[in-house]
């Protein structure tokens, strides 16, 4: 297919015409699903807020199913398709392989996501996004998910094909850029995720059509979490790639060591998906050997890889800042970082919240013994709102501040509001996550319409703190929703009314990277060898917090059985 290449004058990034269109459409679809997911979040949060209890039970479970599916699958995976096309075609400056298949990807995902949502809102598929058997949803609930997944799988192959095109056309030398390597990691995990998903959803569809008599509940849970957990690791890989991208573009940061960072991505490829087993720590059907090997020995390699990224990303920022002359004391580089740039601020809050809240709570939940304290409590959604929301969602929001001018050629409207948005959303959701975890530690259940068990023959007296935390969850959850709505308004508003920007020269051949542009830093190779004492202190703070919190949980555990 004939194509053209546009070089953005401000960033130097090059957009091939097909890739550009696909990125735009996938990003727009993502934002629309975030809008639907955000509206359902109001229903969820106002129902769990004990003072309001907005929805009746049947509607609550319908809305909660929609919230899980639309946020976790639709919003995130549409956006990830745009990330894959960006990391391949744009960063490697080559044409997109098989753009026709790119459109098949897009339309399958559109049809699939709409179909599943129709099933959910018809009310007969309130099975939560995990759809555990023997709860049965309508057949088109599963069929929609399958179409959506096939679309995403095709997107992965278009990405891999584009790597081949770039190699054949020699649009880069040596290894692919770090950000592209991170996207490759996401793509590999996505392929495993989707194949596993097909392995369980196809039989479940057949079962809902009456073609199969039953599906073993334990088998379903085991295979389903190969999909459910791994899909979160696609998100982690994708947002870590964005953590590398934004400082490269904004302040010209280079990885401290290409070798070490790539090695960490390799550990993701090898080990991250095995941690799926941590969802089954309380399941009777799995052997201790299987649980222990998959969740401790192997998972710790993946955790170590995250710690490496958690060190090298701020380290790269510190190194770049020190090279610019911010060398006073331990933290001048941090104080003088571009905090008024919403892309940078969003990225940094994502990093800190993901590391301190999501990471620490994740390791605690993933430890077999102390998992028993929190299993299936409100702690679990507390944990993953600090990974998939303050981590992934906020990173995606942050990179959008860069994409609107370069990809959509529009200036962001209301620059002052843009500056506030990442703080509002990131801090409010971090607090929401924390109080959710607090409530969960006190025993409040997740996915529960009525924690008071009104009318039950035996009453349980909740400690006042549990009620307080649930109220705070409600309040800060609503503040987060305001922060998310603000982002949607700013992005959609900019696309509609933002000042049009110069698109840049168009040519029918790929162009070389203009030197000294953000594009040059993003596709750059090589490491920055500068001492980073400030980052070492930050990482030590993380480790100390982790050890203390871990210990506290073992102490709680000992008190459960009154052994102390």
């Amino acid at each position, binding site marked *: 297919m004939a194509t053209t290449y546009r070089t953005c004058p401000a960033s130097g990034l090059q957009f091939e015409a097909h890739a550009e269109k696909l990125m735009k459409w996938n990003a727009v679809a993502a934002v629309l699903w975030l809008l639907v997911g955000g509206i359902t979040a109001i229903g969820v949060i106002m129902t769990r807020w004990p003072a309001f209890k907005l929805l009746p039970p049947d509607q609550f479970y319908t809305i909660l199913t929609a919230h899980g599916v639309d946020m976790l699958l639709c919003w995130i995976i549409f956006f990830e398709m745009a990330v894959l096309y960006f990391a391949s075609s744009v960063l490697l400056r080559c044409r997109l392989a098989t753009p026709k298949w790119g459109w098949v990807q897009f339309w399958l995902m559109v049809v699939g996501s709409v179909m599943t949502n129709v099933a959910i809102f018809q009310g007969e598929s309130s099975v939560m996004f995990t759809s555990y058997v023997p709860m049965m949803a309508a057949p088109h609930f599963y069929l929609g998910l399958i179409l959506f997944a096939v679309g995403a799988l095709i997107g992965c192959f278009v990405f891999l094909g584009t790597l081949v095109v770039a190699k054949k056309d020699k649009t880069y030398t040596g290894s692919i850029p770090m950000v592209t390597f991170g996207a490759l*990691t996401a*793509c*590999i995990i996505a392929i*495993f995720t989707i194949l596993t998903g097909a392995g369980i959803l196809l039989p479940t569809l057949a079962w809902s059509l009456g073609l199969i008599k039953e599906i073993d509940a334990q088998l379903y849970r085991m295979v389903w979490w*190969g999909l459910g957990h791994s899909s979160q690791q696609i998100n982690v890989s994708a947002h870590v790639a964005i953590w590398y991208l934004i400082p490269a573009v904004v302040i010209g940061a280079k990885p401290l060591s290409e070798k070490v960072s*790539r*090695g960490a991505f*390799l550990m993701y490829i090898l080990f991250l*998906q095995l941690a799926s087993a941590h969802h089954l720590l309380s399941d009777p059907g799995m052997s201790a050997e299987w649980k222990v090997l998959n969740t401790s020995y192997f998972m710790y390699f993946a955790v170590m890889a995250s710690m490496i990224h958690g060190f090298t990303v701020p380290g790269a920022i510190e190194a770049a800042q020190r090279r610019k002359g911010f060398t006073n004391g331990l933290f001048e580089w941090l104080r003088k970082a571009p905090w008024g740039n919403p892309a940078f601020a969003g990225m940094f809050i994502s990093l800190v919240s993901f590391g301190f809240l999501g990471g620490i709570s994740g390791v605690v939940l993933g430890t077999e013994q102390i998992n028993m304290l929190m299993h299936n409590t409100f702690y679990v959604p507390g944990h993953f709102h600090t990974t998939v929301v303050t981590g992934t969602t906020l990173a995606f929001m942050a990179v959008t501040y860069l994409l609107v001018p370069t990809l959509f050629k529009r200036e962001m409207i209301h620059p002052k509001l843009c500056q506030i948005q990442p703080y509002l959303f990131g801090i409010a959701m971090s607090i929401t996550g924390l109080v959710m975890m607090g409530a969960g530690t006190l025993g409040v259940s997740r996915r529960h319409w009525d924690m008071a068990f009104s009318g039950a023959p035996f009453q349980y007296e909740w400690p006042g703190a549990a009620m307080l935390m649930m109220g705070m969850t409600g309040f800060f959850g609503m503040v987060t929703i305001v922060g998310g709505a603000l982002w949607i308004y700013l992005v959609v508003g900019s696309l509609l009314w933002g000042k049009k920007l110069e698109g840049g020269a168009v040519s029918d051949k790929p162009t070389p990277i203009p030197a000294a542009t953000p594009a040059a830093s993003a596709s750059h190779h090589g490491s920055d060898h500068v001492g980073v004492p400030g980052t070492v202190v930050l990482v030590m703070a993380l480790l100390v917090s982790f050890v203390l919190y871990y210990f506290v949980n073992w102490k709680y555990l000992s008190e459960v059985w009154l052994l102390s």
Partner: protein
Amino acid sequence: MADNDNDDVPFMQKLLDNHFLLVVIGVVSPTVLYTLWGIVDIMNTPLAK
């Protein structure tokens, strides 16, 4: 990549540049260690009487 076929490129770099090998490793290893082993475990769980 193409210019990595010569011998002075370190082994790890060759591995990391071999994208399709990484795809195979990343799909096969969890399929064996998690899924297949998991299925074996479940098959070995005795049925309740």
